[in-house]
């Protein structure tokens, strides 16, 4: 059966088309203010990309914080269950899924694709993709360049504020005191890693640890997490689609 998973996140929308256990194709787009339009557009775009029509699709599952705005979905499942299913589909021996999205981050303890326990960030942007976006803007960096620049750092500057707004002030003061951009951004990545690991310790960390969500593409954050864990984490080829993929996977079962 062909299923579609649509993940409407806070910053990006993701859509995956799955035939049984084979990924036919996926798309990622920026979320527009109108979530319904965003969902319709990304569905149309992805289907035309894989050369399928709406009638070919057996089931559509929506997830992400905008899931309830996807009226045409057959089912809505939270991003917790979907990220767990998606990560385990990609990495079958996953024990912990760390998802760092645009406005929330979560750590999920999993076993065979099932959620055992989970914890999410408090209502605060620290430890999320938005945190990096704000800091990148303060440093005049493109978000794509943050990771590669962070790994060139010779030291990690400490960002002590957990609040995004105050952390930005710290970043600005580092800039004005002449600190190198790579050392500042490495500090930003480490601050995120610190928040994430503190959260992960609440549910307990079991290997393998899979990193998903847009921020998983950031090498600086990945390295900082690995340093704190003391062992490597696995980042799937396209970590950003794990939620949408999981939705499509759960659509096969539902």
């Amino acid at each position, binding site marked *: 059966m062909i299923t579609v998973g649509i993940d409407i996140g806070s910053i990006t929308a993701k859509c995956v088309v799955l035939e049984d256990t084979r990924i036919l194709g996926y798309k990622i787009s920026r979320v527009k203010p109108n979530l319904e339009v965003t969902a319709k557009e990304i569905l149309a775009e992805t289907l035309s990309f894989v050369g399928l029509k709406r009638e070919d699709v057996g089931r559509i599952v929506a997830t992400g*914080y905008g899931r309830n705005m996807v009226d045409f979905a057959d089912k809505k499942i939270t991003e*917790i269950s979907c990220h767990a299913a998606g990560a385990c589909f990609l990495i079958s021996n996953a024990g912990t899924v760390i998802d760092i999205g645009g406005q929330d981050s979560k750590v999920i303890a999993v076993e065979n694709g099932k*959620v055992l326990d989970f914890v999410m960030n408090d209502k605060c942007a620290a430890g999320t993709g938005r945190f990096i976006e704000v800091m990148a803007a303060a440093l005049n960096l493109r978000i794509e360049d943050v990771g590669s620049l962070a790994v060139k750092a010779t030291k990690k500057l400490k960002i002590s504020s957990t609040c995004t707004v105050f952390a930005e002030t710290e970043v600005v003061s580092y800039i004005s005191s002449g600190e190198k951009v790579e050392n500042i951004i490495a500090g930003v990545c480490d601050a995120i890693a610190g928040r994430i690991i503190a959260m992960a310790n609440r549910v307990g960390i079991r290997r393998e640890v899979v990193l998903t969500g847009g921020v998983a593409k950031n090498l600086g954050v990945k390295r900082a997490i690995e340093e704190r864990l003391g062992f490597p984490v696995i980042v799937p080829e396209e970590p950003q689609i794990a939620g949408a993929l999981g939705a499509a996977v759960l659509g096969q079962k539902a």
Partner: protein
Amino acid sequence: MKRLRISEKMRELMTGYYMAGMQAECNAWITSGAPVELLHALDVYPVYPENHGALIGATKLGGYYCEFAEKNGFSRDLCSYARCDIGCVFAGTSPIGGLPKPTFLFACNNICNTVVKWYEVLSRIFKVPLFVLDMPFIRKELKDCHLRYVEEQLYDFISFAERVTDRKLDDAKLRDVVLKSMESVELYSECLRTAANKPSPMTCFDAFVNMAPIVCLRGTDHAISFYKEMKQELDERVKEGVSAIEREEIRLLWDNIPVWYRLKWFGEFFEKRNACLVADTYTNAWSGFKVSRGEDVLSGMAEVYTVSYLNIGMEMTAEIINKLIDLYDVDGVVMHSNRSCKPYSFGQYEIQKKLSVPSVIIEADMVDERVFSEAQVVTRLEAFLEML
């Protein structure tokens, strides 16, 4: 959700209670965990700012009244019961026209230490005397020295209240009030325990709505007859197999003070997903008032009030929650991390680890609707139900 008929009666009873307060010759503002029996025995009308706070929260005006306190310099991080109560004093009104001016104030810190400062503020505003009953925190075990310390203060309080009111405490009357208190608590507990039935005839939302009499009127005949009637209605439901919600598939326990401005919303959210919050730790906290008959009344009261739910260590708290989990046979616990109530929310992440069933933590506030983030709460709760 099938509403209980008794809720209508509760409304009448509490309206009468608030009206009586306006006419009372002598009243004391009192914290929810203080030994109110002493006031009843002296015919001092008890005024509960916390109940008033809950009422303001339920009318969704918490933020509005809190701002009156915030404008006067009170931090938004303070308890929202305190903020909206002090806010109403500054505003000179409230949804029920404000509380009657106190004759004196009676704060007991067995529920939190905010009440001490809160009541000091009230004492300065109203220029009336304040008595603080200081409770030692019981980390592990209750000792004789704790009880002696509290008991002596109860005697001090009696002298204080007698002096302020120019009345004399009658021992026989106190004993009578205490017996009534125990009887109403027993009936109230029986009501809560009917939720152990499957399906449950009531939800914790019914308990929240109908808890006002046990807080404000225990020790009076009103509370006794109210909970007798409530018990009858619940027993009828149990006999006829009537479920509080449409379809009970998942049974849950609620921890912490309710989110007063979202009671209906939470109720519908869970019912839609066939989950029933059958019980909660908050209303169960009033079910422990037991003084043995032969015992000296004051030493009995000292004990009961010292080991109140929020005045004990984390180990004991977890033990109590686990007992409730067994008693009500629930599948999971929904923990409200309440921005206002620090002693109640402190340690929830640790307590979680000690519980025998899965749990989830949501962040909100009991009265201040400005901090409620619906999307975040929905995702956590839905994911939790999917997990169960």
